[in-house]
């Protein structure tokens, strides 16, 4: 049992390192190659965990080999379009100028129900509202509405937001976030003055946010018990 425990810890470290090596791209929508790698890595790790007769090296080596292949392939696909086409495929237009491309839908084996489901997941319940719809390489469907059906933006309404930057977390749970102060162009003196005005000590702060326009939100810690 101790051997299984130690092997689990080692494999955990290897799998975490592998996922980190693959990068953040891996953690979002999966490309076909990434899906394959994820399934293979989890399977190999499970085999090595379950069977202590298999040398740990025989589990670690293929995991790292697959991850290296994935990173190298993704790097190559970044620089060479043909490689990208082979590994990830290319986006396919399934609705063009409001008309479903039936041939493409057949080629992608998408039924009308699948198409309408994908549109509904994009918040569109009427096919006539769609100008373009594209099946991305990761299988998701991106939709562009017809101009007449688009919601007006703040810019259209000539109603710009006074401060475009979102508020940052300056202090949380009694701890100061120095980088947030730097990002806001403020310093400790400003924070001390603000807290003094609010009759609050830093240790009493549950949450303090601020933006560049000077808007702040302070929530004090609640008394325990």
């Amino acid at each position, binding site marked *: 049992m101790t051997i299984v425990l130690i092997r689990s810890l080692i494999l955990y470290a290897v799998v975490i390192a592998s996922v980190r*090596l*693959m*990068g953040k791209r891996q953690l979002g929508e999966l490309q076909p190659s990434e899906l394959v790698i994820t399934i293979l890595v989890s399977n190999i790790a499970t085999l090595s965990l379950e069977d*202590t*007769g*298999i*040398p740990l*090296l*025989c589990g670690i*080596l293929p995991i*790292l*080999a697959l*991850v*290296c*292949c994935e*990173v*190298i392939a993704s*790097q190559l696909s970044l620089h060479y379009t043909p490689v990208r086409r082979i590994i990830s495929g290319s986006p396919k237009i399934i609705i063009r100028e409001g008309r479903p491309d039936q041939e493409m839908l057949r080629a992608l084996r998408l039924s009308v129900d699948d198409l309408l489901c994908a549109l509904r997941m994009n918040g569109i319940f009427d096919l006539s509202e769609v100008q373009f719809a594209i099946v991305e390489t990761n299988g998701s469907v991106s939709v562009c509405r017809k101009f007449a059906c688009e919601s007006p933006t703040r810019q259209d309404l000539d109603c710009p937001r006074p401060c475009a930057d979102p508020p940052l977390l300056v202090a949380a749970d009694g701890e100061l976030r120095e980088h947030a102060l730097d990002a806001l162009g403020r310093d400790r003196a400003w924070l001390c003055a603000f807290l003094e005005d609010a009759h609050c000590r830093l240790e009493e702060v549950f949450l303090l946010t601020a933006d560049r326009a000077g808007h702040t939100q302070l929530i004090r810690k609640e008394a325990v018990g």
Partner: protein
Amino acid sequence: MNRFHMSLAVAGLLVAVSAGSLAAVGYECRQFGALAQDIGDALDAGDTARARRAYDRMEAAWDGFHHVMGLFVEGTQLHELRADMAGLPPLLAEDTPEARSALARLEKRIEALYEEEVPSIWHIL
């Protein structure tokens, strides 16, 4: 060092580890196989006492062999080899067909351990 370079470095390391494992398995199997060969030579000479001493040397070498091979080879194969070895001493009291057969089986198992690691097209497929 970005991810791409790190991946290239890890890939290089993996190739080195693979080549190293093949070399280590080859070396260990040759050394261990030579000890089995000594037992066979002693039996050929009709010297059962020498055969027994050669077996003792093999027994003494087992731990080192097992430690290295355990890194690269499945445990069940090593257990089978160990079981074959354990059955050998009683048969070495005299040169009998059973002793020859058990020794031949042991030598073939050692050979097979290395051969299965060789990346030939037949093993890959």
